């Protein structure tokens, strides 16, 4: 576990998570930081990401988001917390019958914020930063996109939502070395748009 930090007052933490048992995983992520967390197995990684995204924990887990314990939260309070968290994860894949633009703009169009012109601007800038030609990229459905392109579309969707806490799971999975070098730019892009945001990279520990 690379992100085991000294205990801090929970109000300064964006996220604090622990799990009882053999795989006890005390994780503490300070607000505004960039952390890389490596899990020993896929099950514990998945449990962590699911708990954070749902703002809900199992009986053997403890989770606090932005200093607030999620156990016993009301539905509305949980919804509010969830709105502050976003992820680029295989769990939140792209919708297969929508093209890239529709995928990126769907949450914004559904929730009514941010406006679609802002979404278009952010998307244009992200694609530009990764050297992708928008016109042909945005009209393609996920099956017509490569792995890297799918990750970039999902990343643009994440940036549009602008979460205070962003979880990026298994970023390099399935990518070539050259592509890994390109996605390394996600951190810079996120930081540029959300200087006070917290970014957590989640991966499996390499044996």
């Amino acid at each position, binding site marked *: 576990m690379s992100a085991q930090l000294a205990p801090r007052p929970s109000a300064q933490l964006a996220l604090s998570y622990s799990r009882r048992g053999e795989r006890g995983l005390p994780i503490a992520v300070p607000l505004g930081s960039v952390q890389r967390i490596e899990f020993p197995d896929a099950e514990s990684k998945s449990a962590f990401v699911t708990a954070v995204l749902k703002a809900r924990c199992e009986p053997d887990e403890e989770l606090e988001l932005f200093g607030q314990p999620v156990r016993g939260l009301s539905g509305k309070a949980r919804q509010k917390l969830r709105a502050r968290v976003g992820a680029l994860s295989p769990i939140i*894949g792209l919708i297969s019958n929508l093209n890239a633009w*529709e995928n990126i703009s769907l949450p914004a169009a*559904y929730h009514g914020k941010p406006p679609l012109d802002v979404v278009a601007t952010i998307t244009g800038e992200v694609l530009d930063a990764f050297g992708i030609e928008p016109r042909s990229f945005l009209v393609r459905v996920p099956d017509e996109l490569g792995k890297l392109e799918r990750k970039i579309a999902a990343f643009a969707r994440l940036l549009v939502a602008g979460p205070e806490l962003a979880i990026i799971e298994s970023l390099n999975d399935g990518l070539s070395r050259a592509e890994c070098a390109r996605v390394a730019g996600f951190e810079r892009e996120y930081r540029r748009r959300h200087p006070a945001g917290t970014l957590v990279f989640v991966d499996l520990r390499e044996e």
Partner: protein
Amino acid sequence: MLRAVREIEGGIRLSLNAAGRLPVLRKPPVLESFLRQVYFTGVTASTGVVLRASLLGVLIIAITMDVLDADVDLAVKILLLVVFREVGPLAAAVVVILRSGTAMSAEMAMMRISGQTRALRYLNINLYDYLVVPRIAGVMVATTALTFYIQFLAVAGGLLLSPFIIEASFMELASRLFDLFTPVDFYYSTIKALLFGFAIAACCCYHGLNPPDLTQNAVPKVVTRAVTQCAMLVLTINAVFAYIVFGILFFGLVKATV
């Protein structure tokens, strides 16, 4: 038995939930999904398949008139009572079940199995809002439009064909048809078509979102179950509706005693 009860309960819950959420159609992506559904269910079906379904209506008229040795009055009654009231909405429902019901249930089952419904939930997008409501509303509108289209083609076809089978002119038949036609016929088929559309879409959405398991093998099971139950639902609604409105069942073979 328990599964059937659970399915009925789930279907009713889904229907009530969707009916209460209709205002969500104002949201742009939901509206877009609704229009897409109307296009795929209504517009794309209105070419080949519907023309063939309409020809079936014309064929029914031709055979019935020939067998019954019909005169003008009977010919027009067959057109109105059988083709307009019954065959039109039923033919539209069959087209919708075969074309859109199968596609809709398979698509939703695939979304559920591949985790896309979970992704929508994580994006704080309500599944009823984004998947169920636009499909139900879209299929209702499209089924009604298809019904009118089939009714028009079948009745017009019947009017044009009848003079070749019985001794009556087109004008004679048409004027008798307008004499017998009442607004009840129009309301009857409209409400029935809306109910058919609702039942088909709700049934397909329910089965699509509740596959028996989360493997690829579940998709054909979902489609088979959805189509079978849609057909049963449509036939039941047709029979009950005819009994409630006209006090008759099975084209008048069974009459209400109340």
